[in-house]
Each structure stands twice: as C-alpha cells, then as structure tokens.
C-alpha cells in the first residue's frame, strides 16, 4: 500500500492528529485526496465540481496559521479536507443541485455551514453529485451523471446524497456534508458502508442549503467513523440567527459521547426495536446483520425492548404529501428570471414571461422533480388541502407522539436503515413507488425532527453493505452517538478492522508510490 493510500484510508480524526503532530500538512492531505479524486472519478463519478485551487489555497492558509498561532481554539478537525453535497451553496464555486435549471450558477454567498468550515480551516475539495434537487434514492436522477457505488460500480450508491457517500466510501474525501429530507444522508450511508447522520431538525443551520422540503431538510455529516461524524457535527452545528428554525441551544457534547461509546459499555442503556420497521419487504441479509448487531448491543450490557410505533406505516404516505407540497413552492423560484437557465417558448407560442417560465421549467427540470411539483401543487389546491395536506400534518403529529411514547420505554430506537442493499442502475427507475419504499425506515425521523444515524452493520449475503439505524429523542443527538460508537467498535473487532478493509479499491492502485511527506 502506498503511503498516499495509507494516508487517505485513515479516519478524519487520525488525519487531524497527524496534522497537529506535524506528520502531515493540510496541503499534503488535500493533494492526496485530489490525486485519489483524479484516479477514482472515472469509475465512481462522485463529484460534479472539484475545487482544487481553492482547496489548496485554504490548506496553505491553514498550514500557515497552524505554524504561526498553533492549534489553540481550533476544532479537532481543523485542516482536514471535506467534500460538499452540491445542494449546499458555496461562494465562488458553481452550485447546481444537479439540475440543468441551475447549471453554471455561481453563488455570491456562502451557506452558514460553509462559513463554519472555512472558519475551522477545513478545505473544500468540491461539490458532490446527488439526485436533482435531492429528489431520489439512487442518484440516478442527477441531470448530469449517475454516481457509482464503490462496492459494486454496477450498482447505485443510494440517494439523494450518493455523491457524498461514494466520495467518502471510495476515499476521495475523508468527510462530506449531506442533506437529509427523507433519508438522503442515511440511506446512501447504508448502501455504501459509510456513516451518515441526520441531526435534530434545527440542530444545524439550513441557511444556504438549497431548500427541497423546508420542514424536513437537515444538513448532516457523512464520514467513515462515528467519531468523525460527531466531530464534524460539532463544527457545523449550533444556533444560527439566519435560520428561523434553528434551535437556540449549543451543540451537545457529541464527540465525548462517541469516545465514551468506544469503551463498549452499554450497561443501563435501553434499546428499543421498532416493531413496524422490519419484517416484510426487508431483505433477509439485511435482517440477519441487523439482528446480529442487536445481539452485540445486548452483549455490551444494553437492555433490548420491543416498542411499537403504530403510525409509522402512515409516515411514507404523509411524507409523500408534505414533501412534494413544500417542493412545489420551494422550486417555484427557478423561473428563468434571476439565475440559471432561461428557455424561450418555441416558435408559434407567444413570447411572454409566463410562457418563458413554463418552457424553462419544462426543459430545466427532470421527470422526478416534475412529478413531485405536480403532486405538490395538487395536494395544496383548495379542493384537496384538508384531505391531503391537512391530514398529512396530523399524521406528523401522530408520528411525533409515537416517538415520544417509544422514548418513554427506551433511550434509543433501532432499525435497519434501508430495507435492501444497493440495487442495480435502472432497477427502480420506472417504478416510483418501489423507489419511494427505500426510505420507509428513514422518513419517520424527518417527520418528527428527531436525530438519526446509519452505521455499517456488515455485508449482506450479496456482499454489499447493510446499514444499522439509531434514533434518539429531539435535541438529544449525543444519546445515539454512544451506542453507535460502541457497536462500531464491537463490529470492527469482529471484522478485524473497519468495513472498508473488505472493499477492493482498484482505483487506488495507480496512485503514486512513495511517501507524500
């Protein structure tokens, strides 16, 4: 293994430790990852935009700062590079939401999370692929290209954040940011053997996250370890006055909880198995890994109880009313007036502003986005508002109550993240409902605003990764980090290392031999 390969296969926190001890510079870290990106992209296609120059500039600035002022006051991950889902606005770096309608748009401002990363001295490697406007579960709905799953490049990485998950899974980036509206961080995490966290709604500022469904969207970490996710969430989390839905509390002590978890002592912890999230529709290999992981939690002292959330079976339906309703309104602004694409109506059609908007949106949006906009317009229309939107909001209340009752019986809830492992390209493209079922286990957390995360639970019979999901109560994100880190440590002991040890990485073979130092 080349030194470069060795370097990029470390966890972000190990990279950070090497940065502080002077074994490696931020520039070297950035360069190593840029090299991997160059080598991996032909087979992975995780990035829409690589911002090499800016990343190296940021790295140099960090290295200088470290040399002059030391690491005092900087977060632990300072200097470690990161990839950003192209749903998050970056000043000076094109931001497209993987849609033709925004192609070429260069934002004049930074999202709050991007400002925080810059303040922390974390260089931005580039923008990762996604389903157009984060709408999809396979990244096949990107207007530009599909992203491939590093475990089997014939298969999807999940979605919508397939780019971020594959980039981290394929060692193109040690960390990434995602956005999770119905599972877009966790389901790709599950399908690519990476860690994905959806924080409590309002725990991370949404200012600068391109809105899909505002009451469900949440930015969160994508990483290869639980501790890395905790450290990253501590960097990006916290109150932001630019986001009215931001919670005015400090970030809970997440890394501390993760480090505690690594001791693998879960005595006194009550783990609730959600009865409704399992059984029919779940791949046997997924259930097997899930059950083994539950046994491991028990073996570390956790008490496992079964809980029932009777309204979860209605969550998917409520989601597919609330989400498209908000989508139909949030995506109205892409009208060819202020930024992005403009298409004039064909000859013979009056060249009016209204027809320009209709022609632009027809040409600029893909099928899935159109489907959701049309559905949302319908759900909000006067005749159906009460029956659909109004009812869905009530289901939301019921799902929140289910969670509250469940958390009276257990500290954390668990389920498989996704009912299946990664599927082949095209397999579910013609069946929206089958595609939507991917998110059946992740959606309840978005409806209820509770934090949830997915960590690798091993490989299914098909040799593909399986995700294990934890849920914690609202604003108590630290509660899930402890058992997640414990389970990760226990599993890695069984596997003899991280799950990625089982991943073959032919794209790394061509990397330069010899030390980067």
């Amino acid at each position: 293994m080349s030194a470069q390969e060795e370097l990029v296969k470390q966890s972000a926190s190990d990279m950070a430790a090497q940065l502080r001890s002077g074994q490696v510079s931020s520039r070297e870290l950035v360069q190593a990852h840029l090299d991997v990106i160059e080598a991996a992209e032909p087979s992975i296609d995780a990035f829409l935009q690589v911002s090499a120059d800016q990343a190296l500039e940021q790295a140099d600035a960090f290295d200088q700062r470290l040399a002059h002022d030391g690491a005092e006051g900087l977060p632990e991950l300072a200097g470690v590079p990161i990839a950003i889902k192209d749903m998050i606005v970056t000043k000076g770096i094109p931001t497209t939401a993987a849609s033709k309608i925004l192609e070429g748009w260069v934002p004049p401002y930074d999202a709050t999370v991007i400002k925080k990363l810059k303040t922390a001295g974390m260089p931005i490697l580039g923008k990762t692929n996604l389903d157009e406007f984060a709408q999809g579960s396979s990244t096949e709905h990107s207007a530009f290209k599909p992203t491939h799953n590093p475990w089997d490049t014939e298969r999807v990485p999940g979605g919508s954040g397939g780019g971020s998950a594959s980039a981290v899974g394929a060692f193109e980036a040690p960390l990434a940011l995602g956005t999770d509206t119905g599972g877009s961080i966790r389901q790709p995490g599950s399908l690519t053997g990476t860690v994905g966290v959806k924080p409590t709604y309002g725990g991370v500022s949404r200012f600068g996250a391109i809105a899909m469904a505002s009451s469900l969207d949440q930015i969160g970490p994508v990483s290869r370890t639980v501790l890395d996710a905790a450290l990253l969430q501590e960097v990006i989390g916290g109150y932001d006055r630019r986001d009215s839905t931001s919670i005015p509390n400090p970030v809970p002590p997440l890394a501390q909880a993760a480090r505690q978890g690594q001791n693998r002592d879960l005595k006194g912890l009550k783990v609730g198995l959600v009865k409704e999230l399992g059984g029919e529709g779940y791949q046997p290999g997924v259930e097997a890994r899930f059950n083994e992981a539950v046994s491991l939690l028990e073996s570390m002292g956790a008490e496992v109880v079964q809980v029932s959330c009777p309204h979860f079976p209605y969550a998917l339906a409520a989601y597919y009313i609330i989400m498209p309703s908000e989508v139909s309104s949030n995506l109205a602004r892409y009208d060819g007036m202020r930024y992005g694409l403009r298409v004039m109506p064909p000859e013979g059609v009056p060249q009016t502003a209204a027809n320009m908007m209709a022609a632009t949106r027809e040409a600029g949006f893909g099928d899935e986005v159109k489907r959701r906009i049309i559905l949302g317009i319908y759900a909000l229309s006067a005749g159906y508002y009460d029956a659909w939107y109004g009812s869905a909001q009530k289901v939301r209340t019921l799902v929140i109550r289910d969670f509250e009752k469940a958390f009276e019986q257990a500290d954390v809830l668990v389920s498989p993240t996704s009912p299946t492992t990664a599927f082949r390209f095209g397999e579910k493209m013609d069946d929206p409902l089958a595609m939507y079922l991917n998110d059946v286990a992740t959606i309840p957390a978005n409806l209820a605003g509770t934090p949830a995360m997915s960590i690798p639970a091993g490989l299914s019979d098909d040799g593909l990764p399986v995700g294990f999901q934890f849920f914690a109560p609202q604003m108590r994100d630290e509660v899930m980090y402890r058992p997640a880190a414990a389970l990760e440590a226990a599993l890695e002991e069984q596997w003899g290392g991280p799950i990625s040890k089982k991943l073959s990485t032919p794209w790394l073979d061509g990397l330069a031999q010899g030390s980067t130092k």
Partner: protein
Amino acid sequence: MAEKLMKYADAVAKYDPVFGLEVHVELCTNTKLFCPAHIEFGGEPNTQLTPVSLGLPGSLPVVNKTAIDYAVKLGLALHCKVNEWSQFARKNYFYPDMPRDYQISQYDKPLNGEGYLDVELDDGSIFRVPIERAHVEDDAGKNTHVGGADGRIEGADHSLVDYNRAGVPLVEIVTKPIEGAGARTPEVAGAYVRAIRDIVRALGISHARMEQGNMRADVNVSLHAGPDAPLGTRSETKNVNTFKGIEKTLTYEIRRQAALLESGGEVLQETRHWDESTQTTAGGRVKTDANDYRYFPDPDLVMVHVTKDHIEELRAQMPEMPRERRARLKKEWDFTDRQMQDAVNADAVDLIEDTVKAGATAAGARKWWLGEISREANARGVSLQELPISAQDVADVEQLIADGKLNDKLAKQTVSGVLAGEGKPAEVVKKHGYQVVSDDGALDAAVDQALKDNPDIVAKLKGGNMKPMGAIIGAVMRATKGQADAKAVSKIVMERIAKS
C-alpha cells in the same frame, strides 16, 4: 369601448352597494421584512438586496422585529384583536417581480384580527368601518415596461425588473363587507383611507405617500336590491393609488353594475383596473382557480409570539390618534369644520400647531400656511414641510404685524423673501428696509396730498359713502412705496373728513 352607466343618483336609489377595501400600507422600517437590506426610495436598481430578498437558492427569511411592532401599533389604532401568536404563510403564484414566486403573507393566523375604525365624514357624522384583519406581508419588486407606449403593460416588448422593493414590509388592512353607506359609499371609502393615512403618519410607521406607492388599495363592490336581498357578484379593482381614484372607482363601479343589472345582464366576478386617463375601470380576466394561491404555513418561519406585556408596552407608546387630536385642536383653535378640513387636507395641522406654540394666533397661522405658503408649495410641487420656511418664521412675521412694524403687504413681501431663501424674517425686513409708515409727518402729508388730488372722492366720503376710501389708501400707498399702514391711513382720512 364605453360601458353603459346608470345615473349615480338612480343607481344608489335602486340598489344598496356593499363594498370592501384592502389597503396596503408600506412600513417605513430601516430594513426589509425578512432580511437586513436597507430600504430607500429611488435608489439605484437592484442595490438593496441580500440573497434573501433576491430569492437566491438556500436563503431563508428572518422576521424584522420593528416591522412586527409597527404592525401591532397599527392594529391597536384600528382596535384590532392583536393575536399573541401569528403565523406566516406562503401565497403561491408566479410573477416576474416576485423573487421566490410566492409571497410571504399571513393566512388563517394573522397578527391583527377583527377591529374597526370610526371615520368622520364631511358633515361631521361618524361612520364605523368594520375591519376583518390587518396582516403582515412582503412587497414585490417593480416592473418597468419598455417598448410600448408610455410604459404601459399593453404593447410592451419586454420589462425591466428592479427588486429593490421586494421584501419591503406591508400591512394589508382588510375590511369586512361595508353596508349601509348607500349614496355616501365613495365618501366613506375616501374618508376611511384618509383616516388610515393620518393614523400611520401619526404613528410614524409609514411615509404614507400615495404617489410613491406607500399606500395602495384594492376596491371591491357589489350591489343588491336591499338589506335582505341576496348579495350580488362583486368586482375587485386592484391597486388604486389615489384617494380620488378610490372614490371615483366606487362611483363608476356602482353606476356600471347598476346599468348591467338593470338591463338584465350579469356582473362578472373579475379583477378590474382603474384607468386615471379615461376615468373608468377596465375589465381584466375573470377569476378562475388560477387564483387558488395554495396557501400553507411557511415552513421556513415558525410562529411569531408577541407577548401580552409587549403589546401593552406598545400601547403605552401610542400617540393621540388623529381624529381625537383634530377634534381637540379644532376646538382649541376655534376653526370651522371647513377650515379644519382644509388644514388637514393641506397636511398643515402640525405646522399650524407649531406656529401657535411659537406665539402666533391660530387664525394667523392658518392664514399663512393655507394661503401664501400653500400657493408657493403648489407652484413648486413640493410639500409645505419641504419649503424653506418654519413655524417659527411664520410666528415671527405675525409678531411683527401685531407690533405694527409690518402691514399686510409688507408681511407678504417678507414671507416671499423668506421663501426665496433670503433669510429669517428679521433679515428680510432689514435687507429691504421694510418699515410701516404710520404716524410721522410724511404720512399726514401724503394723505393731505391725496385728498387734495381727489376732490370728488372727498365729496363722496363727506356724503357718507365710504366705498371710495380704497382709492385714497391706494394713492397714499403709492406715494409711500407701500410702507403705509392701511389702518392708520384710513384713520387719518376719517379725522380730516370729520374736521373739514
């Protein structure tokens, strides 16, 4: 196409109008409703924008506290039930001047609920206008239509959009259906909107300049045969932005609808526009479900909470309301209804009050502000406040008159000098050497000369006919270059006549 109209008197004799007004008031906050972009009328286009007011992807609204406070004050002035909890909702429709293609407004949970406003009509009677709600929302940008005739939308080739106004806070005051105004419907509407203008100015929450679009009204009206008859179909005339326009819209619509109903026709539920040039309303599109705005709570904004204590704090800051203040001042100043109304219409109440405070009589202050100075303001096309003359200046001139140092004519010349920028009244008097000739030998001599030159007039005066007195005074004025005091002249003349 001229539409058939019924004579107004016949229309209101035959039908009862039921009308409603939606008045939009722009608040004069420093920054926009949902973002910290500074607001200034007439700035360079597209320079008062943040990512939020330009509707850039990823941007999020945050509510301006001052806008909420201003809106609460307006709610209190309109006797509204101020709701401790209110919610912003999205009103979805596409239009090029709306950066997000939805307006952030309030729907089923407005800040201000039911209220009323008592408005005073010309004859001094009071009409109570019932108010449904007064909610907060953001304004859209402005389109300039180019390529067509005189900037009108019809025939324009394309439009230029300036989003500076996008996001300016508005309060929309919606009345309940107003019944029982009968023939006085236009008068009530005009008085109501003027009363709102006066209130928001007194509160200092809006510049309330109609000509700058700070206030705009949508006017709804329908006719029915009588209080118990079913309501007719209403028309809605959008964006009327003058007081007269509001009154004329109602008059026109009542006449038009009455003629339609009379001929067995049908009033369409449609949106119309007031056309100042033709003094008519023109039909727009018939309302369809394109006007289903698909309101839903804005998920980017959580509930706005205004505590009871804060509402009471704001209530304590409320100034005396214009109608009450006006009644008090009218009494203090001993003005007639007409005089007070003229002062109000000229926006001179504050100036008269300040002039009286500076020592002048109310009658004197009124004479200047509504006479000489108003004429000058009209000629220059500016407001009284914008002229280079202060309440103190006017009071000083009045004092000079009272002291007998200036006569009317010299006083007018002094005021003209001040308006021309020549300085304070004392400076103008000094500069021109204005001085009343009243009691020295020069005046006696001038009178004697004038009497001598006009023996026929002297004869008439002796015969008890005082009409030609003006001719003698005029001759004396000419002789003294206008510095004579007319009263003094007439006194001397009377003395001479009596003696001779």
